[in-house]
């Protein structure tokens, strides 16, 4: 049973555009929602994370929007750049548990 559903599987965005990746979860006990970024040949690295007590978190060009009632959260990349081309994973975990449940990933390509 997949507990975190991520879409789209792949995404092509023009340079300067907005990239949007969506995730939905089922388990209402989840209370931590990170996004990881993975470049080819590298392991994933934490990009940004949010907890359910806020609806939005922004770090530079990256924003997480969180909708608790809909059990959805999304990553927005403003002014997308070719250097943002990577695979992005959303994830979720519960307080007191050390493991993350990952989405299936989105391959983002930002065209010059």
């Amino acid at each position, binding site marked *: 049973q997949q507990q975190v559903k*991520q879409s789209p*599987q792949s995404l092509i965005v023009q340079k300067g555009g907005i990239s949007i990746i969506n995730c939905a979860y089922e388990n209402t006990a989840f209370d*931590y929602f*990170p996004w*990881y970024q993975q470049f080819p*040949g*590298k*392991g*994933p*690295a*934490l990009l940004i*994370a949010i907890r359910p007590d806020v609806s939005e978190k922004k770090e530079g060009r990256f924003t997480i929007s969180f909708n608790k009632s809909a059990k959805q959260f999304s990553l927005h990349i403003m002014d997308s750049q070719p250097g943002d081309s990577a695979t992005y*994973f959303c994830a979720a*975990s519960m307080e007191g548990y*050390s*493991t*993350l449940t*990952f*989405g*299936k*990933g989105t391959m983002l390509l930002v065209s010059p």
Partner: protein
Amino acid sequence: DVKVTQSSRYLVKRTGEKVFLECVQDMDHENMFWYRQDPGLGLRLIYFSYDVKMKEKGDIPEGYSVSREKKERFSLILESASTNQTSMYLCASKPTGSEKLFFGSGTQLSVL
């Protein structure tokens, strides 16, 4: 700087061989994890360990075992490699009390 080192970047093995994948972290983290990454399936947790000599099954432990004799080292063992274990294997670690995972660069294992 934080470092998780996986011993091999690429590995080719034959069906039925016993395979050892090694991971070392230099951050004194209590928790260590093994994931496999497959296209379209995302990151799936195989095993994790929250202390020396302790291990817990993840979502897909079948066909794998692990060993953690020292805090800094976490080994993944394929007792009898099969072709369906051809995959990218990612090791990660994190300290207790933190949510942030630190990943190695991965080992691409091909079982022929």
